[in-house]
């Protein structure tokens, strides 16, 4: 039953994201979606920085691409609660169904992740030949980085979904703060070592930051900036895995607490005309 529910929610996720237009046009949309991230890296690092062959350019380029997948998964999965409760008005039906809501959210997250991954892959087809990038690609490490990164992003999504379950307004103000804050400490665009003290420390242990750096490591076989440079690989891998697992565990616990509280308080079918 859980597997059926998971597959159904993956299907729903893909349909919700794509059924507003024809499939071919949606593929084009997927292709163009990450382009703004790529463009800004090209302009700032390519024209103002050290050029298109520098480690800092590769750092920012692949950081932005990884960030696009993980952040997209995180934000969209967290927002699913509001979407289901306010826009589609199906949250209570999903909760009373035989599918656990966490499994449903996991399916929505996997669907979104898969679509973002397709978008990035389409762009990588032109990025590698155009910029003539040399890599030391490790498939196993790449799969681990993306998989564990998804786990961490999903955990964060559960944490913020738990907030949205208990906030009975279409409260998107938190997303504004998260978007800015996540972008700052993610290490996507620049090495977090340039951040002041405490922010740099947070970035060293934040799940998405470590996942992005592990993805870069899997593509280039080393660290491109002072971020984690000098840290033994085993220690880096340990921090990466533990931070993402902790994110998932905290998310699961908070979500369960919030969901049972929301059901008791009757929040699961409250809508706001706001």
């Amino acid at each position, binding site marked *: 039953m859980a597997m059926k529910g998971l597959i159904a929610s993956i299907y729903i996720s893909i349909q919700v994201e794509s059924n507003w237009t024809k499939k071919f046009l949606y593929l084009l949309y997927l292709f163009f979606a990450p382009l703004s991230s790529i463009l800004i890296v090209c302009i700032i690092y390519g024209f*103002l920085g050290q050029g298109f062959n520098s480690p800092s350019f590769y750092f920012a380029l692949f950081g932005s691409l990884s960030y696009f997948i993980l952040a997209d998964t995180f934000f969209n999965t967290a927002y699913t609660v509001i979407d289901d409760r306010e826009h589609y008005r199906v949250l209570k039906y999903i909760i009373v169904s035989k599918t656990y809501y966490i499994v449903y959210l996991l399916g929505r997250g996997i669907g979104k992740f898969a679509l973002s991954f397709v978008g990035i892959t389409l762009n990588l087809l032109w990025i590698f030949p155009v910029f003539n990038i040399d890599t030391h690609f490790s498939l196993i490490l790449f799969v681990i980085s993306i998989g564990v990164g998804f786990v961490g992003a999903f955990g964060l999504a559960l944490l913020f979904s738990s907030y949205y379950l208990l906030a009975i307004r279409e409260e998107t103000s938190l997303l504004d703060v998260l978007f800015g804050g996540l972008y700052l400490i993610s290490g996507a*665009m620049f090495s977090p070592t340039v951040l002041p003290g405490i922010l740099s420390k947070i970035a060293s242990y934040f799940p998405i930051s470590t996942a992005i750096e592990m993805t870069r490591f899997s593509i280039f076989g080393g660290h491109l900036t002072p971020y984690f440079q000098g840290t033994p690989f085993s220690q880096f891998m340990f921090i990466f895995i533990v931070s993402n697992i902790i994110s998932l565990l905290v998310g699961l616990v908070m979500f369960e607490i919030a969901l049972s509280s929301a059901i008791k308080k009757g929040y699961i079918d409250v809508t706001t005309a706001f």
Partner: protein
Amino acid sequence: MKKHVELFVRTAIARGYVRVKGQFTRDVNWLIASVVGGFLTMATYVYLYRSIQAPEEFSAMVLIGGFMTPYWLNVLWSVAVQLYWEKEMGNLQIIILSPAPLSAFLLGLTIGGMFQSTIRAVIILLIGIFVFKVSLVIYNIWVVVVVFLISLCALYGVGMMFSSLFLFYGREMWRVASIAQEPVSIASGIYFPIKLFGRVAASVVSLIPLSLGLDALRQLLLKDYELYFLNWKVEVLILVVMWVVFTFIAIRLLNYVEQIAKREARLTLRWQ
């Protein structure tokens, strides 16, 4: 005639009042969150420029870009998409059926939105100046204010124009808006001067009022600023023309929307 004018003004005030009053009562947490979020996004680009050891002038450019970002977001998500959202909430048909003109409704939205965004923009600017120790120079405050207001009028003219388009195309346009938000921010020169694009590309992106407005403001606020595209006086003239043209198109489109809604009962019903 007097009655029409009175109705127009009262509608605009009524719609704008909600946005103004809401800032200090219902939406305080939204205000705080958008200021913090906007500041953090701006900080990302300041640290990015510092990481590549760009001149300190770029930090000041990002600061001014960060100041204008709330206006751009307000135009896109609170003006352009507003009619679509009113339709989704079921209010649009009531608005259309009322004697109040749709253009007055949008004007009120625009004025209220400008007020909302100004609070955010000023706070972000002040925090940015304090945290990053960026210095701006103001040779003539009234010139800066006039240039700023003209830029806003042109920008909000675009928003009013797009509000009708969003209504026609519904969910597709919402998706296009979400995908266009970042590229337009980049193309407008929020994070770097549009001169870097080259003459031809910069001319194309100048169709976005935000890019010319930002370029003009940077010339007026940054000492010895040389990375400008056109002289600020030329840019202001272009912005005035844009303002007139976009507002004219917006009014025509809105009248067309009202006609379709009343005559054919299309566009205004939820999920239509």
